[in-house]
């Protein structure tokens, strides 16, 4: 029972505080399931993020479904999905009238922007953790090659994340196995 509560709570908190859409919830979720609950290692979590980004659809719900499934099977998966979708949707429907009135209010505007640097820092810390983990695992040379190639393909060439992830999987299978 405790496990299901943890699945619910970790997704609930991450999605309740993740301002700026699905990606904002990633570091908060990592904080819960890697740092606090110890359910996954940094590497396992990075695998979820990479493969999750290689697949279509929202990232927060893919992570929630998978984390729930690993920890609590299909019921766990449903609980994870519910916790990530329901709170903000219920808030939207319940507060519709109020939000309509205040959507241009300076307070709400400020709220949605002051949180962004914090999310940026959280994402930045995760980036650093992933890089240092990769350095420990495969050394500088492979890490730098993959970082540079990944950056050029994703950001400069606009290649679909699906192909970049596939390429990294093949690279890893052949050269890092």
């Amino acid at each position: 029972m405790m496990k299901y509560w943890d699945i619910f709570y970790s997704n609930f908190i991450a999605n309740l505080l993740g301002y700026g859409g699905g990606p904002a919830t990633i570091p908060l979720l990592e904080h819960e399931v890697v740092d606090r609950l110890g359910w996954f290692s940094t590497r396992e979590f990075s695998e979820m993020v990479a493969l999750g980004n290689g697949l279509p659809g929202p990232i927060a719900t893919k992570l929630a479904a998978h984390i729930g499934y690993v920890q609590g099977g299909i019921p766990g998966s449903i609980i994870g999905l519910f916790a990530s979708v329901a709170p903000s949707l219920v808030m939207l429907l319940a507060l519709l009238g109020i939000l309509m009135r205040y959507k241009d209010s300076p307070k709400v505007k400020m709220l949605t922007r002051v949180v962004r640097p914090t999310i940026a820092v959280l994402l930045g810390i995760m980036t650093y953790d992933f890089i240092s983990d990769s350095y420990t695992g495969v050394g500088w040379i492979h890490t730098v090659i993959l970082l540079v190639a990944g950056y050029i393909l994703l950001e400069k060439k606009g290649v679909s994340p699906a192909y970049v992830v596939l390429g990294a999987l093949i690279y890893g299978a052949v050269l890092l196995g």
Partner: protein
Amino acid sequence: MHKDLFMAFFRAGMLGYGGGLSAIPLMHKEVVKTYKWMDDDEFSDILALANTLPGPINTKLSGYIGWRLKGFWGMVNCVCATVLPTAFLMIMLLTVLNAYKDKPWVEGMSKGVLPIAAVMLGILAWDFVKKSKLLMGWPATMILTIISLLVIQFLNLHPALVIVVLIAYSLLSKGAKDDRKKAGGSG
């Protein structure tokens, strides 16, 4: 109607790569152009509303649109269409990969995607910084970034705490400054 709702959000979800944001134009196309369930203004109103709240944008959009059009079950239908197919793919893929975890080449695959995940998060982090700069300017962005970094990384406080404090501060303050300046300037 329910079949159309499902197909509209299923297509938008399955074709939207790279996180939720890429699916928004696809949803717009389905909802406004293909099925004509609402017009441009209504759609952008809903998007603005969804942005004032935390959590994934897509599920808020699809859930609300489903609710508007077909009540509770419309909402359930649209959210499921957005979320379930990709959740299923995700679980399948990672479960298969985990089943062969002890094979060295699968171990290698997991090592290979680690730096790619780092790049993806790095790009996201920078996007948040850029967006923040656009909305608040460099000084405020830098100050908030440095304070967040100090508090989270060096004081080791829970990030949730930082965010709750920021939310409380915004609601108690007089609101975003540059908007008042702009309003004053144009008036």
